[in-house]
């Protein structure tokens, strides 16, 4: 049963945990808005303070919860909007999983914040970086602790938005904004799926509360059986696939490596990439009612893992190599969830998030590391692929290599089957719109609609 009476310290701890990064964002962003950007020497300590407070609060909350409660608790902080039934209420669902993930998130964010403080020293975007990092942590905690679908969606959006803005951090070069748009577009698909799932859930279960859904209670399973559960679960899986770069969306992941190294580390090595896995873990009760969706998740995870494992073997830059290596593990975590090994999946997720963070943060050290390994072993370790590849005939092997090198041609497949048709439809509609306006308002001179515009992004 869901304990609806939250213990006082837990309520406060969670509020402080989520509130301090949000406050940090408000302070840094607000100061910049009124054209009084906070100088580096005050931003640094502010960020360190907020992250430490958040981390301590949530770890404490985890401990408090662990010693006092065993059931999931719904913490309510009042409603923002009561215009209609349900409204948007600020509710956090607290259980071992959500507090564990929240505590992990703040711990990792704290380390990254300490790292960034020195790494971004004297950088012109220092303030912007920390504002976005705070926004990200807030979003991540909302996703982790969300008690209803509205909070979940807001958190989900904040993670996506801050992610895209950090990819475009070095906006004076053309590549980062272009890649940020690409990432953002994929996130939109994921968000659309998420929103549809939310609407459907509310429609069929009559509530946006995730306590019912994720708590795995009997009522929810009664309300959500058969087709409804499957449709909602599939939509959730699409959302997860977009956010965690599962197939067929994987190609945005290496493109996201444009930001400063620590932001790549915390997003694509550590936290954001696992947000999808976490959501799947959270909705495990729902998945259990939708075997078809579960199968789909398992298949996607397995396919992604195989694809990423092959791709990472041929990547020659350290960040792409790590990106696909992460994806390999993310795929396996998804498979574990689909099978139903939830605890294992969570331990795997936490271990992977920590380990990959270290690897990403020390990515520039790869020359030093490999030299050290070489020196200790007395020779360069033999590379050139394992025996598996040598079994394949030459031509086929070369073709496989090409596919891995070109990352499965996913970009061009997406362009051809999604982007181009979409753009064509958009262009037709725009033409139709122009035509309609011409027809209705013949007196107004209309600007010609550009026809041969082939900009995809």
């Amino acid at each position: 049963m869901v304990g609806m009476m939250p213990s006082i310290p837990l309520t406060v701890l969670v509020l402080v945990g989520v509130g301090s990064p949000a406050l940090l964002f408000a302070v840094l962003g607000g100061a910049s808005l009124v054209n009084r950007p906070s100088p580096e020497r005050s931003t640094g300590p502010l960020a360190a303070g907020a992250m430490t407070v958040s981390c301590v609060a949530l770890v404490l909350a985890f401990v408090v919860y662990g010693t006092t409660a065993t059931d999931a608790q719904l913490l309510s902080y009042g409603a923002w909007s009561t215009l209609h039934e349900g409204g948007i209420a600020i509710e956090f669902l607290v259980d071992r999983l959500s507090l564990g993930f929240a505590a992990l998130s703040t711990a990792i964010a704290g380390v990254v914040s300490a790292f960034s403080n020195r790494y971004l020293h004297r950088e012109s975007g220092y303030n912007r970086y920390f504002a976005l990092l705070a926004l990200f942590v807030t979003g991540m905690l909302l996703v982790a602790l969300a008690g209803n679908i509205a909070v979940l969606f807001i958190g989900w959006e904040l993670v996506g938005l801050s992610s895209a803005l950090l990819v475009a951090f070095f906006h004076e070069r053309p590549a980062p904004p272009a890649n940020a748009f690409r990432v953002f577009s994929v996130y939109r698909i994921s968000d659309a799926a998420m929103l549809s799932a939310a609407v459907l859930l509310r429609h069929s279960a009559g509530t946006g509360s995730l306590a019912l859904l994720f708590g795995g209670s009997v009522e929810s399973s009664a309300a959500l059986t058969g087709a409804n559960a499957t449709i909602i679960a599939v939509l959730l899986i699409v959302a997860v696939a977009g956010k965690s770069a599962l197939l067929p969306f994987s190609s945005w992941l290496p493109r996201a490596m444009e930001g400063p190294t620590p932001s790549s580390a915390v997003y694509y090595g550590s936290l954001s990439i696992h947000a999808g896995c976490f959501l799947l873990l959270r909705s495990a009760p729902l998945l259990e009612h939708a075997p078809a969706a579960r199968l789909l998740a398992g298949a996607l995870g397995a396919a992604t893992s195989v694809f990423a494992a092959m791709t990472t073997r041929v990547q020659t830059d350290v960040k792409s190599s790590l990106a696909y290596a992460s994806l390999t593990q993310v795929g396996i975590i998804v498979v574990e969830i689909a099978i139903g090994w939830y605890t294992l999946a969570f331990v795997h997720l936490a271990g992977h998030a920590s380990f990959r963070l270290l690897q990403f943060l020390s990515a520039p050290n790869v020359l030093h590391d490999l030299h050290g390994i070489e020196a200790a072993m007395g020779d360069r370790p033999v590379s050139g692929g394992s025996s598996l590849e040598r079994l394949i005939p030459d031509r086929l092997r070369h073709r496989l290599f090409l596919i891995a090198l070109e990352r499965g041609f996913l970009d061009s497949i997406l362009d051809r089957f999604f982007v181009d048709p979409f753009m064509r439809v958009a262009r037709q509609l725009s033409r139709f719109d122009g035509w309609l306006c011409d027809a209705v308002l013949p007196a107004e001179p209309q600007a010609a609609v550009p026809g041969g515009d082939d900009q995809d992004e």
Partner: protein
Amino acid sequence: MHRSSALPEGNPADNPLAHVIDELAHLLPAQGPISIFIHHNTLHAFEHLPFEEAVEHAAERLGREPFLSESRYREKLASGRIRAKDVDALLRDELGPSATDDVAGVGPRVDLWRAVVLHGIPAATGRELSWILEETDALSRFRSDLPAQARSALAAVREADDRAGERGAVHRLWDACVAAVGRAGERPAPAADIPIRHRDHLLAVYAVDTDAWIHPTLIRFLAGYLDQGLAHWSMPARQLGIHGCFLEIYRTSVAGQCGPWARTFPRIIEEDHAAGRTALGSIAHSLAELGVGDDELADYLSAELLALRGWAGIVRQIEERPDRVPVRDLTVTLRGYLAVRLLCERAALEEAARRVSFDGPLSELRAWTGNRLPVPAPPTTIDRAWRLFHVAQLCGLDVSIVEQWSLRHVAELEAELERIDDLRRRRILHQAFERAIRHRLYDALAHHVPQSPSGPPAFQAVFCLDEREESIRRHLEEVEPACETCSTAGFFNVAMYHESVTDAHPRPLCPVAIRPDHYVGEIETDSDRLVRRSQRLHRRAAGFLGYNVHLGSRLPVRGAVLMTAFGWLALVPLVLRVVFPWLSSRLGVMHETTVGGGPTRLQVDREDAAPPIGKYAGFTVREMAGIVRRVLEDTGIRGRLSPLVLVIGHGSISLNNPHESAHDCGACGGGRGGPNARAFAQMANDARVREVLAAEGLTIDAATWFVGAQRNTCNNDVTFFDEALVPAAVWPLFERAVVALETARRREAHERCRRFDAVPRWYPPAAALAHVQGRAADLAQPRPEYGHATNAFCIIGRRTRTRGVFLDRRAFLVSYDPSRDDDGAILARILAAVVPVVAGISLEYYFSYVDPTGYGCGTKLPHNVTSLLGVMDGAQSDLRTGLPWQMVEIHEPTRLAIVVEGPRDRVSRVVRANPSIDRLVRHRWIWLACLDTDSGAVWELRSTGFVAHTPEQPLPVVVGDSAAWYQGKRGFLPPVAIVPGSAAASDERLVRVPWSG
């Protein structure tokens, strides 16, 4: 079977195409693999031109900046780093007799130039200018930065503080300028830039960038082909050469999926493969398809090469020095790359042509788009009036004068302004900026009273000439006034391939220009076999574990087990390295001392066994004697050796820094100089060597002992080698020297800290050493040290001329005793060894600073190590060459001023005899001056010959130690004489100086 491009192709030297490509290759960045970073002149290919011409020419050709932006120079003018009197002096030289000519009735030319150079004309045209005119007070107030005369002249037309009157006056002046331009008639439009490549045409006319289409594929292929071991599955068929391998891998219909541009890609590749062309043949065929004629061949190909210059550059580097990369079975040729590039480009162009509805052959594409190119418009009346308006203000012209300007006046004035365009102004300001810095050094050297230890030195320390050693030498001399320091190129003349006990491969330790003949290995001495074995096993196990974690984390199943079981353990080193870097640095040291090897020695003696690399294993006694003799002669300490001589090389170790090697010793070819110092000491201590030297008349006292050491310039550690061998008689002295060095390195760490922004200005000296140690071990630290940044001078002469002068870690110091070198032979070999190294460092810093994203590699933060060869920006980009901004941010871009102590005729004779140095000096890529041995006067070499420098400022004196001068100050500090408190009492020159850095 396909004929591979790796096979010999008749005689490629006969092929004019090959010749053109070889010529053009000089334009490419000449940076080799990043783990052996060698500083070089970024614009080496332009050294045949005088510096200013070269940088401007290169800037235009390569699309880069020759100098800082004009606004940066104006900041320096405002802060006093550039002085107006230097600008005056330069203008006098530059304009010569024409300085007094009247220009368009405005005044003498020199006045016009001076006003424009010192105050500038804001560059604005078109809409920007309209905005300025409408939205700012440009038309209602006079400029606030007018020179004094102009101000007084204009004051005549306006009353003090009369806003309305001023507005009227400014408006009248503006109207008069517009009217004057109107009378002068139209000016011709500037010549249109005709794009060279098809891609440039399409970009200019249709905004279609085919480079953006093909570069991702091209970069992935090149990075894969050149990979030195980052990918676990390396590219197959690499032995076929770039072009052959490309055909082999991309010859499949799947290649059509490379992008929307790749529709015809498989067909083009298949055709190229079927025809069995070589790389050169393929290039020729592609060029014919593209319709590139012989007359434009060089231009077309150079544009083609420069489109992805970093990658093309590394291809060229590996082609020329395949021994500098570990992977040996590669056939890397620039022509192979070009062939591949043109194949991709043809596919992309065909698609682009289709999209813009051009259906002819590619060879006619440019003619077709040629008519559609945008035509530049002539400058508008407003644009032209804007410049005249500023001239009128700067020269304090009355509106009545402007109203009388005729066509001739305007034309003359506009022609003159063309000459003092933005580029020329930056050039003059830059020269003035350098002049002030240089002259300050000359002043200091001319005024400094030579100093030396009162008696024979207690011990001597030989350092590298590196400018980072200037500070530790100064501190050592302050701590231990009885010691003497000197310096020479930090490989101590031991040119060798070295392999330490823990190295996997030998690496060359000597300047790049030398390919060593000798191999010297480090071997473990026969102590305890068992301990040795267990240590080696220990090391191997650690390496094996590291490798499996590295690899396993990238594999699916092994990775899953690893992450699930041990993943969270990563948080321990992470938190330690990021949150407590100093602690982790100490833990690292503890770890090293426990597993670090037992006693070792260098196998310096010649052995018969064949060396793994080079010609000989070890040196013969005669060779060793030659090495020792040369260093003792060069540094001028022969014949007056103390009982103890320390020989100290240097290197730098830092984390998370792909450019780590750039901080190592330049004279060791981007390696660490400790082994050289150690080998040198071992040779000099060898009784057989001393015997040979004694026979040649160079006696080394039997009581004299040499000790090698290595200093880590990043964390300030000093490691001594072979301490156990120090004789008992020398031991007390050695201990004294060790203590002195210990104090000196702590003080030096403190001095270094003053340049770090993150360190408070008044920093306790006791905390400084821990701070620099933390920096070196900090994963999050993009500035472990500032390396060669701020280098500006090179002083070749006796230490007495510089001892006691605070040179702010800006001067390379080379010991040279002019009194023992009548024929200049020693100077000749010193210059030959030193100048290429120091000029390379200085010029690389210059270019990486003036254009940090063009010549330099931009900010480090998004760097992505690729193929173990270099870094890219973010997800994918051209290979970035040059230095990152974090390394150069505190630098001042100035050409190196080399001051040689000795007679002028000897110096000029020696310089003239060395063509490559002569070229650098003649074209002023470096400045050369002479410090007269007797009079102490400084003579600078100009185009007209040596010119005596007239000292401008006295050398200020600071009492105490170096800290008394630098403590609490962040920026550049001018040279001062540091006089110890005891000596100061009797010194009359004592002046208290205010800080003006």
